[in-house]
């Protein structure tokens, strides 16, 4: 088991390395750097000023060298003016006014420095930590509503395959997976949060949830995330439940004279929930896309918003950190789902 986990962690590191390199490559193309220079130093600066800005701020070196600087395996050069004062360079970002000899030579990931967000004007670690916390809250609530509901719906539907209840619930779950967030969210806001329709039960903006999530300001974003994800889990649960219900040991139990309720609750449920468990874990990364939409729709400044802002403003260091977090989330949930599957199902051994 330990070897298995170590190997998976190694793959994770390699994936993160490759992914950050691709992101680095795409965000550091010359036109993107020029765009960055213009957003940083003013839209009306001349081409010569763009070139000098790029050089002075440490974006001028060859791509591979700068990737090494970001990793922290290569020293980042410092631009100085005629008086020997530091005027720019990777390690100076976010610390204006630092004397030239105070600036560290290395400032990459290996030194624990994730860089400086040019959009938010703060260290990347601060931005990411704050944003992840907020998105974590959103995800936690979404999961807390989505998972139990989906399991109940799935179990009820799978109990008697082909019954009217099954058909109804299955159609319902298919309908929810067919309704993307940008449709359901918009309709929710129009119905439940607008002065015009009149049902002002909730608020259509979750910005105030930053200071404190309440039932009023957090319900709609949570519901929007949960609705889209729910159908999928429910259908997996239904399939798994339906399969279990036809298994030999269930038939035996029923022939023994146990009531239907007892059979479902005592025998079928536990085995039927193994498969959905992996699905639920794998939902994490998938929900990330949904979270980006929901955060944009409800003006909730979380991780998804950081991703969009970073991408729109070519915030290189922020995007690199975002992609590392994404890799870790995706691969860690995969790992957890594998381990969990093994633990729940005694017949499988992790090789």
């Amino acid at each position, binding site marked *: 088991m330990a070897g298995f986990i170590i190997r998976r962690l190694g793959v994770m590191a390699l994936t993160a390395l490759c992914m950050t390199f691709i992101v680095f490559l795409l965000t550091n193309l010359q036109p993107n750097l020029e765009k960055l220079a213009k957003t940083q130093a003013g839209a009306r600066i001349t081409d010569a000023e763009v070139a000098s800005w790029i050089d002075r701020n440490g974006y001028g070196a060859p791509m591979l060298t700068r990737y090494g600087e970001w990793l922290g395996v290569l020293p980042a050069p410092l631009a100085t003016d005629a008086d020997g004062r530091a005027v720019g360079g990777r390690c100076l970002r976010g610390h204006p006014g630092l004397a030239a000899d105070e600036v560290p030579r290395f400032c990459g990931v290996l030194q624990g420095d994730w860089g400086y967000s040019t959009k938010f004007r703060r260290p990347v670690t601060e931005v990411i930590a704050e944003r992840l916390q907020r998105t974590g809250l959103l995800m936690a609530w979404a999961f807390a509503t989505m998972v139990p509901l989906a399991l109940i719906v799935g179990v009820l539907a799978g109990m008697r395959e082909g019954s009217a209840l099954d058909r109804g619930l*299955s159609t319902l779950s298919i309908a929810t997976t067919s309704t993307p967030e*940008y*449709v359901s969210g918009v*309709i929710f806001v*129009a119905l439940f949060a607008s002065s015009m329709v009149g049902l002002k039960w909730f608020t259509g903006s979750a910005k105030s949830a930053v200071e404190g999530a309440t039932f009023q300001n957090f319900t709609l974003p949570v519901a929007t995330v949960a609705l889209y994800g729910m159908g999928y889990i429910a259908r997996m649960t239904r399939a798994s439940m339906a399969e279990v219900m036809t298994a030999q040991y269930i038939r035996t139990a029923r022939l023994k*004279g*146990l*009531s239907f309720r007892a059979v479902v609750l005592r025998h079928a449920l536990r085995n039927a929930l193994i498969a959905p468990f992996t699905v639920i874990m794998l939902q994490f990364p998938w929900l990330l896309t949904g979270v980006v939409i929901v955060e944009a729709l409800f003006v909730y400044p979380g991780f998804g918003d950081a991703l969009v802002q970073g991408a729109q403003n070519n915030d290189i260091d922020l995007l690199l950190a975002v992609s590392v977090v*994404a890799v870790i989330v995706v691969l860690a949930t995969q790992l957890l789902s594998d381990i969990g599957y093994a633990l729940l199902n005694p017949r499988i051994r992790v090789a």
Partner: protein
Amino acid sequence: MERLSWTGALGPWLVPALEAALVALALAALAHPLALLAGYRLGPGPEAARSGPGRAARLTGGLLRLSLWALAAALAAFLIGGLLVPPEAKGILGRIATRLWPVWLSLGASFALVALFRRRLGLLGHLLGNPAGAVGLALVMFWVFAALFADQIAPFDPITDVIAGMKNKPPGTPLPAPEGTYGYYLLGGDALARDVFSRAVAGARVVLAIAPAATLFAFMVGITLGLPAGYLGGRLDLLLSFLANLVLAFPVILLFFLLVTPEIVAMGVPTYMAGALFLFPLIFLTILWNSRFRTRPPLRAALIGATLVLGGWLYAGLAWNADPFGVVSMPAGVLIVFVSVVFVNAPSVFRIVRGLTLDIRTRDYVAAAQTRGEGPWYIMLWEILPNARGPLLVDFCLRIGYTTILLGTLGFFGLGLAPESPDWGTSINAGRGLLQFVPFPPLVPAVAIMSLVLGMNLLADGLREESLRE
């Protein structure tokens, strides 16, 4: 001219009928689960459990079915009645039904054909007997025919017909100067005074041109790489799986933002990606013919030659916009969206194909082919692939639905097609801000997207059930 009502002359009779059916349906839908649960609890032992739900549940179940049929009948009456009454008595629904007549005709004809040759059609024939599958097929075919006949159905041009005074008007509004035109905006006007109904229909054409084709390309890529990865294994598998996981670990939105930003487009990155991805169908077909007709060189040469010439021509036109005859090309905006969608879908297909191959390659018929001395590509393409077609077909349907949603997501972030494009995602995004006040411009494409994806999912469900039964 006055504004049209929804139901026209039929309203006074049909609306109450519809309402009654809806109320009955709601009551039955509430009562049935309760009756079911109550039945289980009351069941006095094994006999009751085996004999199924109690009498109350059977009653409510029957009521549920009956009210469903009543609802369907009422809706059908709207459509058929709307078609039949004289034009001046038609409401909005009747007029829409009339505009859609090519769709009804083709739908009827195709279902009649399928029903007639049911026995010989295999899976497709069985599908008609499966309620979910039949409804799904009907929904999907509805949009397919709507897309095909869009020019006949849409009363206005979806892009250029900007009629002053029609901005954000409600459904059924007559034009200020109706002479020589259809006269009404059936589902109202959007923020740029274009006809919402025409745009929704034209949007079907855009969506159904991109989503299935992009999914098909993703399948070509996934299959061409997934089969050898699963069958041959080894380093190749390790490398390809790593790459697939790499793409899958990317947050989709970030990938899109990176690929679709104008700076990266200007660098030609999407064109190079198209150059690589569009090669796969060519490779796939070439290998397909080569492995099958190895023993019949003339046929093999003819097929491969035709594939390379025809495919190469399409390839040059689509990927590089370099068709020597200037016929085949893809607008730059569409190409970017297309390539991005193929790129994010291909790795998932790869994983599915690889998993299926790992499973199937241990079967007896594969071993038999190996002992016959067949080459690996023959076994992969002509032994393994046909036996994996069931799950792949199901995934294909699901994936078209997912791709449709993805196209909308791109539109949501303004990354998709040109702003005047009538595709549904773009229209929803353009209209969503004013949804509370002017609901129809975003709502109509929203319903369209939901119904098409729902149809795809139901179809996939039906296919899965039927292929399991086979």
